[in-house]
């Protein structure tokens, strides 16, 4: 019983998302059932009916894309000692923010026509635009092993470790043929590693789902850029599938 009292209570929440990160959590638990002994899940709408409000760690999936969702996120922030952004939608705005580059009225009318004002929306944003975020699990979707690693670090009271070097480092370690060499485009030189360079390993360029490395100008893989005649600025400008929100913030 005492052991149970010591178990931190965790909860999962979602906003504007595809639920893929929560599904990845479910998948990670399959191979780390031990984690279910270390924490008590009190809320996970997608997987369970029970519902507790006394959580200490909140994992939040999804972007905030309408004003009325802000209050719910603030309540979560008030309750939880630790708020973790789960995946690119929550961390960056991600895919949801692609539409931010177009006029909002036009976007709404394109999909809902003359009924556009029936459905509340505003430009999509990461959860950090609304509340303070204590930790981030990047990716679209998150990486299973990294999720387990972050949870373990949080349980030990440590700051979860995230690599601050670019995807290229992992890609070169895997001895992949560079996507640029095959005539493609890849954001690996400026994007944060930690996914095992899974996209270049599968023959496709990195699209930047894990966000930028902390100092792209200093730490990008400039040998790759030099070889293919590109600059960090070229890279940043191409980072729109997941980084439109950041691009627009930087530009404004």
């Amino acid at each position: 019983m005492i052991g149970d009292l010591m178990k931190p209570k965790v909860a999962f929440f979602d906003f504007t998302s595809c639920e893929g990160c929560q599904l990845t959590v479910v998948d990670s638990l399959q191979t780390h059932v031990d984690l279910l002994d270390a924490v008590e899940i009190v809320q996970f709408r997608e997987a369970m009916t029970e519902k507790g409000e006394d959580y200490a760690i909140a994992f939040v999936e999804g972007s905030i894309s309408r004003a009325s969702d802000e209050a719910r996120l603030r309540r979560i922030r008030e309750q939880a000692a630790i708020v973790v952004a789960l995946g690119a939608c929550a961390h960056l705005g991600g895919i949801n923010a692609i539409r931010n580059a177009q006029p909002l009225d036009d976007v709404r009318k394109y999909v809902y026509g003359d009924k556009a004002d029936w459905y509340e929306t505003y430009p999509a944003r990461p959860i950090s635009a609304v509340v303070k975020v204590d930790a981030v699990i990047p990716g679209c979707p998150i990486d299973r092993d990294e999720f387990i690693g972050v949870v373990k670090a949080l349980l030990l009271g440590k700051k979860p470790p995230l690599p601050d070097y670019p995807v290229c480092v992992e890609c070169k370690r895997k001895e992949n043929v560079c996507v640029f060499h095959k005539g493609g485009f890849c954001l690996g030189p400026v994007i944060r590693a930690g996914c095992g360079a899974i996209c270049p390993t599968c023959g496709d360029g990195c699209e930047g789902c894990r966000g930028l490395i902390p100092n792209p100008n200093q730490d990008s893989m400039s040998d790759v850029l030099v070889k293919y005649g590109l600059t960090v600025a070229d890279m940043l400008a191409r980072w729109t599938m997941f980084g439109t929100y950041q691009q627009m913030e930087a530009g404004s």
Partner: protein
Amino acid sequence: MSNININIEVHHVTRVEGHGNIVVNAKNGVLEECRLEIVETPRFFEAMLRGRPYTESSHITSRICGICAVGHATASLRATENALGIEPSEQTVLLRKLNFHGEILDSHVLHIYMLVAPDLLGVGSVIPLVQIAPEVVLRALRIKKLAGDLCAALCGRHTHPIAMAVGGFTHYPTTDELLALRARLVDARADMDATVALAKTLPWPAFTRETEYIALRKEDEYAFIDGTVTTTDGGRYPISDYRKVTNERLVTHSTAKHTAHKRESYMVGALARFNVNHDQLHPRAKAAAAELGLTPLCTNPFLNTAAQVVEMIHSIEDAIQLIDQLVARGIRPEPLPAFPGKAGEGFGACEVPRGILFHNYPDAGDAGAGV
């Protein structure tokens, strides 16, 4: 009966994908309101694709749903290929079918074991089942892992596929990987026997509701990718006429659009596919259907889950057969087709786990696509 009052409001239905509220009101035995409210935020994918390269469409639209990511990517690729006049090679078609079975297995096992079974077994989630019935949970996890590994070998990961591209793949499984998966698929037959046995014991509510069922149909196989839109009320349409069955309309209480064909509503998904295409199921799947008492035309919507069990067996058998074909042919890297220089309107359709899915790109040119 006449003085019965019912007032049900379920706020955020649990153990479902997506966000929904259920409202049911009856006064003096007369139903006043019965509503499913989809309260998700609108996401505007149609607008997102505008002005972006066609090669990105499948990567962006797979993010519509983490569960049927492969299905969205496949329907998107078919629409883009249709717009560009690109015909995928035989190898690509085989690999996509195999990939698709991985997703059907992944989604159905999740739904059957983790979302539905806890209700029918009287528990709040799959977690208490770990104690009460560990073998059931372990079986589900085994199948789930197999499904995930199958997708990962083909497209990098199930959510969200990486290696599926317009006109082909950017990565290929090795023969050894395929043979290892084949062995696990063969082993999964025993797990599916046990799944059928479990499904037989579950207390399915006895309830029928006649309606129209709509699914893709192909002449030569149980359709998941491409086909003719076919309804149990007798309609048949080419995919390019999909609007004749969607007839989308907006409602204020739900961000999901409503659709109707000849009646007020229709059903899609595993039961619809079973009702439309049962004759094309693998013999093992047919035998399972018979054992579960599933006969077309089945109008008990709860048995959609039983139809999922049947489809899982079909997918396992067809996946084994596809691997045999791929191994016999030998997998060769194939270059992706270049942009053919012009593009028209494109249509693509798939049967994702939860039902028929259309992608329609009015202008899929190099710089622009829309849904």
